[in-house]
């Protein structure tokens, strides 16, 4: 279970999250929706441990373990994966090298045996075929010159290989056309499992047609202001966020 209680996060001097409380049990997919500037991306960064997004109050735990005291890489080794809205380009580091380095770093941190190069190549070939990715692309520097869709697929490929237990998808649908969206959503859906929790952050309902959430939460003014079933997403799509923006203010 991901358990966030009374979380306060400031960026610089500006309070962004103001007492956010949320539980996501393992095996469930929860969507976070909300207007621009509500603090959706900040939530993802705070859980993942981005410098400059430290909690000033409250707690975040995953499977009963406190996350806030851990370095970002330690959180990753505990299973936390944040899929970036705009995945970063890393010139000079081939995608394959990057993912293998990350996977083995996580395994080392958990005291597990590292993956050998041939075993890793086999894993990558299977995963990239499932995502309809060109294997040669993975020899290029990570995300450099990749299209928006390719970058998102690269994120899903990393998820498939790193096998995180807590997935946070930050605006995964942005910049994707309908075909790319379908492939990316299939990749995410393939990772659904009873011991994984997923937090899907999105502004639009569109993504939720493909990744069906168990629960939908509205984030406005730095707090969860409403929660409900999948029907809440449809209602938001029809009515907009005005009501909640007013409430939050």
């Amino acid at each position, binding site marked *: 279970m991901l358990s966030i209680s009374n979380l306060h996060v400031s960026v610089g001097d500006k309070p962004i999250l103001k007492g956010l409380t949320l539980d996501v049990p393992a095996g469930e997919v929860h969507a976070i929706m909300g207007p621009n500037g509500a603090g959706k991306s900040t939530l993802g960064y705070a859980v*993942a*441990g*981005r*410098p400059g997004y430290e909690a000033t109050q409250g707690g975040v735990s995953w499977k009963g373990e406190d996350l806030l005291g851990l*370095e*970002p*890489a330690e*959180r*990753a*080794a505990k299973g*936390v*994966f*944040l899929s*970036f809205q705009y*995945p*970063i*380009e*890393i*010139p*000079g*580091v081939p995608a394959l090298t*990057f*993912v293998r*380095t*990350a*996977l083995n*770093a*996580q395994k080392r*941190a958990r005291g597990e045996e590292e993956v050998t190069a041939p075993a890793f190549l086999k894993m990558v070939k299977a995963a990239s075929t499932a995502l309809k990715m060109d294997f040669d692309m993975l020899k290029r*520097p990570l995300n450099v010159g990749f299209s928006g869709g390719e970058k998102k697929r690269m994120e899903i490929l*990393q998820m498939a290989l*790193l096998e995180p237990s807590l997935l946070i998808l930050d605006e995964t649908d942005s910049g994707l056309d309908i075909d790319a969206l379908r492939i990316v959503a299939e990749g995410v859906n393939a990772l659904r499992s009873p011991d994984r929790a997923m937090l899907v952050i999105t502004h639009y309902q569109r993504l939720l047609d493909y990744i069906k959430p168990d629960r939908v939460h509205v984030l406005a003014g730095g707090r969860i202001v409403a929660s409900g079933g999948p029907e809440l997403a449809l209602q938001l799509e029809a009515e907009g966020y005005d009501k909640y923006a007013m409430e939050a203010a």
Partner: protein
Amino acid sequence: MNAFPLIDLKDASSFPSRRVEAWKYSDLRRHLREAPAPSPSATVPLVGGGPFEALGGEAMVFVNGRAVGETQMMVSGDKMVRLRLISRAQGTGHALTARLSVRAGAKLLLLESHEGHGSAYVAHNRLELDVARGAEVTRIVLTDEPADAMSITQAQVRVEAGGLYRQTILTTGAKLQRLETQVTHRARGADVRLDGVYVLSGERQADLTSVVDHVAADGVTSQLTKGVVRDTARGVFQGKIVVERGADGTDARMGHHALILGERAEIDAKPELEIYADDVQCAHGNTVGNLDEAALFYMQQRGIAADEARALLTQAFLIEVVDRIVHEGAREVVREWLTARL
């Protein structure tokens, strides 16, 4: 046009101070007020064959300035030479001059290693290299010197018509370390590449200075130097390209890019282009910055610890220079050498 004073280790009055423009950032006189006592001839037997041993080739070896074999070489055909400049001295000084002449159409891969042992020595190395018409020379330099050593290496390279000269210097610096290259395009259509990498930590300093003189037409010069400085280290890059009257059709490009990874580390960069000819293409770029914070966080988020993420990004930044080395075997040796020093 020789802007560089002649240095004689036996004569302290020949040591340039920062008042000499070309030595502004490497004040030899401040560090060395008196001529050092001459280094003894090293009696210790040589161990190993230097960092390029695995590649084979012939060896040309100097220990404390004294040649073990020849000091001059005439190269014909296709040759690989390991030029090993070994210092085994404590607080003393030594100097050497090596001459290599590469005949028309010949090929030379010159693998130069500065292997410093002992402490606080002063080394002065001079290299004269003639690249005849249509000859091809690749010079790769790896320097490993103690943090309290001082060394000055001055290479003078003359390239004749259609000659090809490629140079890559990699260094971890010393107390004061100057690696100077002067190249003259003496006849039409010479092609020159001057690359460098410096990785400096502690209180080390390295000074990569070059002067490329285009006397003849249609010459190409391409320079790429990248560096990383940590702690209170100091990197110096001075690159000067002169295009003389009549050297039309010259194509010269110079890039220097550095990362400052220590709050008190320093970079001094001085790129200069002097152009007296028409119809030339010249460009230079110079950047100094820090590692990308967003990239660091992204890597950590995927499980790569902060230190490893920094090392990976640093290596990725520098490796572009190493990738320009054409000889595969040499490139791999250099890549491993660099990776071990990040």
